[in-house]
């Protein structure tokens, strides 16, 4: 652990040093190749005039709304196609098909339906992550060892109890993988959508950086996008995943 921290610190310091050195050589003009200090100044300025904070909050709100809708939908559809064979054979193929479609391809339809609105971008986020969640839930449900269900039924479980107390807990490790993947798809879909048209938000800050020829701002915003993506993934999903895997006894298997 300690070794890793030292290694990473040294690596990134070195990287930034080289970057600063190359920028100082002045081979490319600063509007094409910014220096790390320039990027740092942009970050500071962006947070000082609140434009970054506002952008982050706007983007987070969209992604959270969209993500929660797709989690709810993905759980329902995943449970349905995981348990009902005829739905799996029909609806299941649609899910697989749409999963292959890059989420931004939904944007034209979303714009036609909702115009240049919040709803359109949220629809893109939902459709970007819904299928990943669905597939995770579906896989988890299909792989529930039948003996758990039989054991529960002989103890008198039936109907909704069977879902809430056996199927979902048994499928949880796979459901969480689906949620994790769904999150990363939602985040990507949002950025793609915001880049294309939305005002206010991280994607919009990128577009503005380009329009103002401010490459430092572009890189500053890219760093923010990466940091948010990784933080949520690590702090929420990886932690959750490890805890569940440990409790389910999957770690030392």
């Amino acid at each position, binding site marked *: 652990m300690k070794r890793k921290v030292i290694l990473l610190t040294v690596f990134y310091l070195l990287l930034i040093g080289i970057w600063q050195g190359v920028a100082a050589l002045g081979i490319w003009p600063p509007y094409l190749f910014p220096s790390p200090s320039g990027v740092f100044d942009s970050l500071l300025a962006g947070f000082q005039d609140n434009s970054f904070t506002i952008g982050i909050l706007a983007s987070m709100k969209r992604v959270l709304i969209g993500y929660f809708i797709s989690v709810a939908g993905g759980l329902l559809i995943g449970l349905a196609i995981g348990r009902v064979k005829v739905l799996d054979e029909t609806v299941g193929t649609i899910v697989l098909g749409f999963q292959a479609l890059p989420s931004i391809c939904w944007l034209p339809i979303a714009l036609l339906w909702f115009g240049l609105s919040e709803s359109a971008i949220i629809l893109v986020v939902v459709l970007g992550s819904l299928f990943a969640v669905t597939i995770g839930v579906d896989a988890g449900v299909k792989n529930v060892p039948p*003996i758990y269900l*039989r*054991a529960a039924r*002989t103890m008198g479980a039936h109907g909704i109890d069977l879902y809430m107390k056996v199927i979902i807990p048994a499928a949880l490790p796979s459901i969480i993988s689906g949620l994790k993947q769904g999150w990363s798809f939602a985040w990507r879909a949002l950025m793609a959508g915001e880049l294309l048209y939305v005002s206010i938000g991280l994607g919009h800050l990128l577009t503005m950086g380009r329009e103002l020829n401010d490459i430092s701002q572009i890189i500053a915003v890219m760093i923010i996008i990466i940091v948010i993506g990784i933080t949520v993934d690590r702090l929420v999903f990886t932690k959750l995943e490890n805890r569940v895997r440990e409790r*389910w006894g999957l770690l030392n298997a």
Partner: protein
Amino acid sequence: MKTVNPPKKLDSLKPEKVIDLRQAICPHPLNVIRDTLRALRENDVLLAVSDHEPTALENAPRFCERRGYPFRTVEQEGVWNIFIQKVEDRDARLKVENVSKTFNSGDGKVSVLNDIDLTIRDGEFVTVVGSSGCGKSTLLNLIAGLDKPTSGRIFANGKRVEGPGSDRVVVFQEGALFPWLTVRENVEFGLKLRRVAPKIRKEMAQDYLKLVGLTENFHGSYVHQLSGGMKQRVALARALVMEPAILLMDEPFAALDIQTRESLQDELQRIWVESRKTIIFVTHNVEEAVILGDRVLVFAKNPGRIKSEHEIDIERPRQPGHPEVFLYTKWITDEIRENGEAVDEVQEAAV
């Protein structure tokens, strides 16, 4: 025990049927008596003649008491006559009537069970032994209501079996505990479904875990932290805590090493002696069947059917290697071998 037609008929000492157990060496008179009685009509009297004292006669009186058959023993010049009246099995816990089961497989239908008839009385400990694939688990699943018979009927606790119910809980071979719950939560699972209050639930779980011999410091553990033997103890506690009228066990000790298996066999016998629960225990190990069962049903294959049944009258607790256990085991194993049925497997298991 109630008898509608009092044993008055026995006073006349006029039997409808006589069997002489003095002839040749009759290895297991109880089986002969049982089978002969089965062929008789209600209230008929059977006279079994023996030159042993009845208690030595495979405990015929005990057999009659167990089943509620009125009987009388009369000694005449060293010859023992035991008069047994056949009465209906009034306290049947489980009745399996002409049950057959076929599965649809890739190339047509496979008959897995054929015309099974079986009555199990309240408090009986019945073991079912047979090589793998002969339909033992299928029968247990039908009784549990996890599957439906193709034809025939099953009655448990006086009601037709239509589906699973917690009056017939199954203990499976392995891997049926829920890994996302602690040991105690696993045991509380069924009680929670019954909406038992948390405090009572916890106490019951504790009591039953204690009953199966799991020390308190494991009650909070997760399933993957337990050894195979402990897991099966928990599985047993999880079934017993439901207080089912019938406990169904499908090779629950088959995956355990010998020492652990023997200690669990001891435990199960003790629990049965204390609770007199009706137990149907499936195994492919003849010795295990003899150690545990009052009655051993031998299953045959293709299609699955009950080939023979044996009354086991050995004092409990029975232990492996006990001479009587050994004799019964050998006898049943020999019988299976004679019929040329999947000898290897059963034989191997019997060793």
